[in-house]
């Protein structure tokens, strides 16, 4: 019988990562879209780095950073009793970094396409920045928000290199589906690998289908 725990672990990881990134990306994107900070391009480049960097490179550096033998890892274990190497928490942090551009880019482009006068109009009507973001900005970029959420979730489900480097393959802790497939193949259990792979394949296809359906729909009801 196939072990379902890698599937649940993957779903849990993707869900938590998506939630954290969603809450993080909104203020970050708002700042990127409207601030006149001179070195903004550097920040944007850093955010996009995981798009081009081999996952094993990112994973390798994270492994070094998280390791209790180095300053950052030591600091975490000393003051917070937090170990990030080969733990689920470590996986979450690695996934957040690795999937950051998949959440930030759609939201940022949504914000940049929104006429700035909408926000200014809300200010002239006496509304605070917080109310403006909540009631005007976010509802008007909801296709971008949805794209960001779905892409982040799907990308986290599909990650392999970073997870392997930072998390290893500890059952119920860090062994996600993509790693389970790799291990089943290594031990010649093609049937099990086939089931895992089939599930991921169907999942990825449906996700992309949904994204394109949303994009087509929002293009038809283009508001501006």
């Amino acid at each position, binding site marked *: 019988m196939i072990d379902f725990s890698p599937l649940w672990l993957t779903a849990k990881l993707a869900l938590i990562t998506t939630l954290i990134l969603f809450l993080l990306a909104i203020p970050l994107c708002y700042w990127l879209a409207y601030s006149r900070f001179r070195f903004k391009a550097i920040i944007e480049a850093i955010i996009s780095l995981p798009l081009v960097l081999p996952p094993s490179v990112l994973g390798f550096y994270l492994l070094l950073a998280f390791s209790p033998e180095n300053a950052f890892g030591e600091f975490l274990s000393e003051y917070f009793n937090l170990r990030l190497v080969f733990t689920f928490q470590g996986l979450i942090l690695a996934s957040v970094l690795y999937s950051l551009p998949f959440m930030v880019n759609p939201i940022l482009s949504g914000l940049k396409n929104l*006429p700035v006068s909408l926000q*200014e109009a809300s200010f002239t009507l006496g509304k605070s920045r917080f109310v403006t973001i909540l009631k005007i900005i976010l509802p008007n970029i909801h296709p971008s928000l949805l794209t960001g959420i779905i892409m982040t979730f799907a990308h986290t489900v599909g990650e392999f290199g970073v997870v392997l480097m930072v998390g290893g393959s500890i059952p119920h802790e860090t062994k996600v589906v993509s790693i389970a497939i790799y291990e089943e193949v290594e031990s010649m259990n093609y049937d099990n690998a086939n089931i895992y792979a089939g599930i991921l394949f169907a999942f990825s296809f449906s996700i992309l289908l949904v994204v394109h359906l949303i994009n087509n729909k929002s293009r038809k009801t283009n508001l501006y």
Partner: protein
Amino acid sequence: MIQFKAYKMLQTADGELPLDVSFSIQKGQFLAIYGNSGAGKTTLLRILAGLTQADKSAITVEDNIWDDSEKKIHLPIQKRSIGFVFQDYALFPNLTVKENLEFALQKGDDTNIISELIELMELQSLQNSKPQNLSGGQKQRVALARAIVRRPKILLLDEPLSALDDEMRFKLQDYILKIHQKYQLTTLMITHSIPEIFKLSDSVIHLDKGKILKEGTPGSVFLEDKISSKFKLTGEIISIHKSDIIYVIQVSSGNSIIRVVATEDEIQNFKVGQKVLVASKAFNPIIQVIS
């Protein structure tokens, strides 16, 4: 009374341009701001609204200081009693017409103002529509109504009618005038249309390259010679062609094309594209009602 004084270096396509403007308006007045694009008109309005911060500024509205760069006072936009109508209307696409108006309500406001404005601006049949289903003129009326919900003291209009055809324009001018009088507003409006200025405004500022070129009543700014029997129009030569033994010069001025006859000697001085003044002693002007 509003006292406005501001200095700001503007970044334009032709390099830097200092905006340096100082004027005052009495309460309840209707002031038109006229000038070429890039003269700094919108920036002036935005500085008054608090949307743009000037390098140096001193703005007081009925003894309240809104801006004072020396004392480092800058009243936030939200606290300024203004209604701002944007050039692109800036209606919220996620809200219906009625919700757009209701969004402007503050805590504890009398909600009757919404139905009052919907009736005044004749929006009853549109109140449940989304902005993207409205025509330009309808959007403009919603934007105008929304700007009044807070009962501001000052209404700022950034070229509100430039995108509309003449018929719609005349109608909306009446709405603007109605609102200006009913809610006892002090109104500042950017416009390119001189007839509009004569119809709506008590006074006018002619802005050119960041400076006030002229200010006063529309009559004193635009009719230099006050009362005279002369016509004077400025325009651009668009063509010169020969017709039998004379030459015909076509000059484009405003919305009309004027034909002027000239001799061969005279046309030596003219080229297509030149800016010219067409003047005539009008011994028999014709006047007709057009609307």
